[in-house]
């Protein structure tokens, strides 16, 4: 009897467990996005929208809250419920699920996910709203910023402040080395980096420039911003192996590594650097005399007050592109409207205010030391007048400035190139042509798989 009972019991248990699993599985696999819609805010009806953003520092949260207050003052019937410190993986979950708790407006610090937001239609295409509001994106936003906020013709997000990259240099070290002006071309830069380098045994007392890709902001994509390289061809396939500028950049960087002491010596010196976003940053401490960095460094240097004078300039360009001096790499924060939002009218009013209202953009940029993201704001007299910061405003306005385009699998292609860069600088990869071909092939495979 026990055997019979046991067998039946097992069957019952298996049936119950199976049913439970199937029910759970079914419920899990049927979750899908809700469709969005408009609201009556245009007719003056009170509407509350939810805005998710990633800012978490006190000054940043205050700045965005001040911007929201200014919007609510201008639009008394639209109320904004802000939720801060939200990362993209949480955003994805909310965009998929929709519902009352989901955001209407979402901002993201990284431009990497724009391709996914656009291709999956998680964000609505803002072209109709822009047209209806009489906003010409090309005349409103710098080209590089527009580039990283759209994917394959879908303008699913807009720039909400930006970051531009340039050269920081130690004026005291320059004076000691007899250098009178910042370098403009790579050959001048290489010569200055060598002159500024002071040996200390088998290490350095001062390094002219840290060229290694792990040297904080000296990454492949930031260097490629000086070359104007194209990451993808017209057919959407990786252009890394075909564009000679990519190989030129990798060779230039490798040349800098070799000239300044070699990979092993530089890597050992790099290990002595303090944290990037602290007063122990190697430029702050004087360990490096020149650095490539974003506009935010002006604020940290002003706050930390190193014991030397410093200045900024556009990062040098290849000698054969000397005319493009003034360009730089650009990225920034993006903002979009969730497709699941049922309050897209109010959401657009808010996004329009955040991204195109000159005073709002300028005040926000001043408060968090970012580059404004519209031409009007970049030229605004209300911007904090700091000559070192102006360098980055000019880089942002420069039509030759570049960015990394949106891709369907996020920043996967940037990482693939980065990995080739690590292998090439360390000597693990010696055949650059073969390395570039393999990297391009891998990028195409990854993107095809993600499509």
């Amino acid at each position, binding site marked *: 009897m026990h*055997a019979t009972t046991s067998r039946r019991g097992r069957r019952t248990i298996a049936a*119950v467990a199976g049913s439970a699993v199937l029910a759970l599985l079914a419920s899990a696999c049927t979750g899908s996005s809700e469709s969005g819609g408009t609201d009556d805010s245009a007719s003056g009806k009170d509407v509350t929208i939810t805005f998710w953003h990633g800012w978490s520092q006190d000054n940043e949260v205050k700045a965005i809250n001040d911007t929201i207050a200014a919007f609510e003052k201008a639009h008394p019937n639209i109320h904004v419920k802000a939720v801060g410190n939200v990362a993209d993986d949480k955003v994805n*979950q909310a965009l998929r699920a929709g519902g009352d708790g989901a955001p209407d407006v979402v901002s993201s610090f990284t431009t990497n996910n724009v391709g996914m937001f656009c291709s*999956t239609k998680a964000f609505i295409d803002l072209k109709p709203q822009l047209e209806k509001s009489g906003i010409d994106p090309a005349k409103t936003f710098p080209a590089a910023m527009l580039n990283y906020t759209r994917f394959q013709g879908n303008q699913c997000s807009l720039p909400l402040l930006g970051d531009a990259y340039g050269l920081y240099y130690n004026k005291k070290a320059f004076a000691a080395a007899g250098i009178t002006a910042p370098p403009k071309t790579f050959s001048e830069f290489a010569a200055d980096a060598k002159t500024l380098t002071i040996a200390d045994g088998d290490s350095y007392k001062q390094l002219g420039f840290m060229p290694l890709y792990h040297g904080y902001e000296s990454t492949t994509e930031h260097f490629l911003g000086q070359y104007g390289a194209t990451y993808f061809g017209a057919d959407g396939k990786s252009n890394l192996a075909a564009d000679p500028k990519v190989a030129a950049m990798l060779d230039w960087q490798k040349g800098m590594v070799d000239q300044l002491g070699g990979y092993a010596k530089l890597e050992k010196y790099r*290990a002595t650097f303090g944290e990037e976003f602290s007063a122990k940053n190697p430029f702050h401490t004087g360990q490096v005399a020149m650095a490539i960095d974003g506009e935010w460094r002006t604020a940290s240097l002003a706050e930390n007050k190193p014991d030397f004078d410093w200045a900024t300039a556009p990062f040098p360009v290849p000698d054969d592109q000397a005319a493009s001096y003034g360009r730089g790499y650009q990225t920034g924060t993006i903002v979009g409207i969730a497709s699941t939002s049922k309050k897209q009218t109010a959401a657009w009013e808010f996004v329009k205010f955040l991204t195109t209202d000159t005073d709002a953009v300028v005040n926000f940029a001043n408060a968090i030391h970012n580059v404004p993201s519209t031409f009007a704001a970049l030229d605004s007299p209300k911007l904090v007048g700091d000559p070192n910061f102006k360098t980055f405003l000019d880089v942002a306005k420069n039509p030759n400035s570049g960015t990394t385009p949106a891709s369907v*699998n996020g*920043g996967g292609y940037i990482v693939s190139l980065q990995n080739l860069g690590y292998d090439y600088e360390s000597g693990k990869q010696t055949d650059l042509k073969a390395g570039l071909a393999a990297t391009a092939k891998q990028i195409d495979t990854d993107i095809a*798989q*993600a499509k």
Partner: protein
Amino acid sequence: MSLAFGTRKGAGTTDPAAPSTQHLLRRKRRREAARTLAFLSPWLIGFSLFFVYPLVSTAYFSFTKYNGIGAATFNGLKNWDYVLNQLPTFWQGLRNTLWLVLVMVTLRVAFGLGIGLLITKVKNGAGFFRTVFYLPYLAPPVAATVAFAFLLNPGTGPLNHLLGELGLPQPGWFSDPDWSKPALTLLAMWGIGDLMVIFMASLLDVPKEQYEAAELDGAGPFQKFRYVTLPNISPIIMFAVVTGVIQTMQYYTQAIVAGKVASGIAGNSGQQFEPGYPQGSTWTLPQMVYNLGFQHFNYGAACVVALVLFAISMAVTSILLRRKSGFMASDD
């Protein structure tokens, strides 16, 4: 018992009470089954929710194209083909993970047993040494890894300074692809407190009479260890190996933190950090699951890697448990 039923039926009994008895028996069986189910239900619900459901979902998503936002669509074996044939980083991650399983688990078990043996022999200050060796285990993994990254910093770390003073080679530790996994192994051995405690308890549990008998037979220290200690603590060794293998197959936190600290890429908002620094040497399969799923939005491929990890863990654990010296040895 089922034979008895058969015999009764075969005899063609005509007892009028029989249907009633059968009915009662059926009711009793149902009650027993219901009671069993009721007692089992907390486990059953938990098991279904936290094991069966995720496992079945993972298997399902491994055959779909799913980016976390749109609906999952069936794409056959494409994710499997992509991970196994077109993604070189998968094999790199697998090699690194298996290296850690082989070296880290072996050394941790050996070191834990060694420390346990030493501490059981200490006459004075045993409590102090137990505390000293156990304390590192209590350190949060992130804090411990950051501390190790600073201690082993090739440029400014005190260990390399000391090695330099002694005229010994100064490895690059977390910055050198040849030394990064040994550095992680050192970190794992430092936090040996968990194994030390269970080995110590099992060593103290070995009957003293067996040692006395072995001594009478002329056994030396090595023979006593080989023929008395080892057989007695073999179930505990097996436990340490099995749990060690499972934990190491899930190795994530220390590898990613060490990579971040040593690479200098803080991974702040908007920064692109790819785990595995230096040169993919600390790239493990659990990191790949996170990376594919939550950074590249390729949940299907991430599920494939997760299933491969599960299959390897199950296979290794099954092989180990089938060995005679496994858990069941204690019942012999």
